[in-house]
């Protein structure tokens, strides 16, 4: 068997399966052993949209991530908790291509090796990220912020001649409603309240239509009402999208979570429902038992 022969065989299988492609996220294919990797398409037939194994990162000798292994199922809403310095943000940096791990594997679906892509490519593949500090384009209006995030061709030439079509306008209006900023379309993003900026950033993620959302402290600085609405939003997103939420607000996590992962010192300490991890003695020791 030469690589050429294998590729030829792969192409033949692709031709046979072509009619079934594009029906679902995985191309309508069931789990099997002789499948073909389609570039840019997320293959979730193995039931995992994100897969990290034995990832190590150190900064100047400090082991920020130390043998982290974690996986997330399609449509899952996973909460990540952990004390400060546990490596939560660094983990997101690795997934989104901002930080290169020293060793380990990071896969999006079964076929896309995220370590081979840079930030814009990973974003285009369908991973959206909200930063811990709300990061929006302060000088632009709410509308322009969302328009920039819109899923479309993002090259220079298409940006020069870009016009919003009606389907895209509808999508934009829909997201504006979802994030409760419909009244503030023309407001400058820099003038929004902290909570509204958080919402705008979430809205920008939604415009990208990502398959996986990484949310770093999404309800920090929000009022109780805003927090409740955010929880509601996340629950509606669950199923259609996969979400990974890093939060410190335990009541918020209790509202939304099904499965919680506790990170400590750069690796997974415990995993399970919130009640399970809260009962875990090691977790109580490092995190909850103040």
């Amino acid at each position, binding site marked *: 068997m030469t690589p050429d022969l294998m590729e030829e065989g792969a192409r033949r299988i692709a031709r046979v399966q072509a009619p079934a492609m594009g029906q679902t996220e995985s191309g309508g294919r069931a789990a099997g052993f002789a499948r073909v990797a389609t570039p840019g398409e997320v293959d979730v037939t193995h039931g995992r949209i994100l897969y990290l194994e034995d990832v190590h990162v150190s900064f100047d000798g400090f082991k920020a991530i130390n043998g982290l292994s974690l996986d997330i199922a399609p449509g899952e809403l996973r909460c990540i908790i952990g004390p400060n310095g546990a490596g939560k943000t660094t983990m997101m940096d690795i997934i989104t291509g901002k930080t290169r791990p020293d060793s380990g594997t990071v896969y999006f679906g079964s076929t896309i090796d995220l370590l081979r892509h840079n930030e814009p490519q990973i974003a285009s593949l369908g991973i959206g990220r909200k930063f811990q500090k709300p990061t929006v384009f302060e000088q632009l209006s709410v509308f322009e912020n969302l328009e920039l995030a819109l899923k479309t061709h993002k090259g220079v030439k298409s940006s020069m001649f870009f016009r919003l079509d009606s389907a895209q306008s509808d999508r934009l209006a829909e997201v*504006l409603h979802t994030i409760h900023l419909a009244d503030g379309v023309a407001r400058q993003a820099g003038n929004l309240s902290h909570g509204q900026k958080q919402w705008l950033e979430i809205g*920008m993620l939604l415009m990208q239509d990502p398959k996986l959302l990484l949310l770093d402290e999404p309800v920090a600085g929000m009022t109780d009402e805003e927090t409740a609405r955010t929880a509601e939003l996340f629950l509606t997103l669950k199923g259609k999208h996969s979400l990974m939420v890093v939060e410190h607000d335990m009541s918020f996590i209790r509202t939304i979570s099904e499965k919680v992962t506790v990170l400590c010192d750069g690796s997974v300490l415990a995993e399970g429902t919130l009640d399970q991890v809260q009962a875990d003695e090691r977790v109580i020791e490092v995190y909850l038992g103040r």
Partner: protein
Amino acid sequence: MTTPTIHLPAPAPLLTRTGWSAFFIALIVVCAVAPVLNLWVPVGSALHMSDYAVALLGKIMCYAICALAMDLIWGYTGILSLGHGLFFALGGYVMGMYLMRQIGRDGNYQSDLPDFMVFLDWKELPWHWALSDSFIATLVLIVAVPGLVAFVFGWFAFRSRIKGVYFSIITQAMTYAAMLLFFRNETGFGGNNGFTDFKRILGTPIATQNMRMLLFVLTGCTLLAFFLLARWLTLAKFGRVLQAVRDAESRVMFSGYSPLPYKLTIWTISAMMCGVAGALYVPQVGIINPGEMSPANSIEIAVWAAVGGRATLIGPVVGAFIVNGAKSWLTVTAPEFWLYFLGALFIAVTLFLPNGVVGLVKKLTKRGAAQ
């Protein structure tokens, strides 16, 4: 659930009605009023526009093009270049080479070669002068040379993610290095003296009143055209991506945009605009030498943009007129104070007018409207 319709803002027009009116008034002033006042109104008349004024305004309009180019890269994209004088000088040198060839055998040594080459005892034209006889090739090279230099430099700098003050310092070093290179006689750019003593352009004498007026009109039209181009670029989504790169580059990347091609495009366009400005400048002032690449010149371009108001387009144009107007006045009346004045102006603007003169005017009119 039915969602109530939201009125999404319509794309902004290239210019508003008042904007277009102002644009056409400026066009008429440049193309009709100025020539009439200079060429037909008799010299003694109060309405006469002196040759000095034509030369000064023509020069300032070249500077205004540079300020506009600086605004695109600094005001909109947040990349402070302190090397734009290089692109200006490169455009100027390309034009200068053509003008040197136009001298023909009328130089001091009556040779086919430019005087400085005879002086250096050179027997034939160096390779990089090959296209200098053709006006068409000159026109192409005026944008191509600064564009290419900017593209190559920008590609390496932006790919390495060099930002902020580091980028500014490197651009400063770039123009300084180029200046030292052009100062050398063996590089074939006329060394210390540069190019001067031009006689003709396209076979027509260059020092006549009509030719000066023609160059003035061309410069004005170029400035106006570049203004429209810049306006179009900044109003398109392209321009908003540039502002997004300025405000939160990581968010741009995580939104799926690769900042490199955006930065590179606007950087190269900006350099090309400066090249055109330089090419218009040289026949009007009649000389180009490596002094144009001195770091101070590049810094001055940034000062014009800052004084006028960054990220406003009209601001830097106004800034170029204000600063250079003040310069030509002060260097005559109190030459020893000019540099102090420039420094004080820059500090004052940075401290008290972060949005420049245009920002101040906007603030005042807003306050006036509110009362």
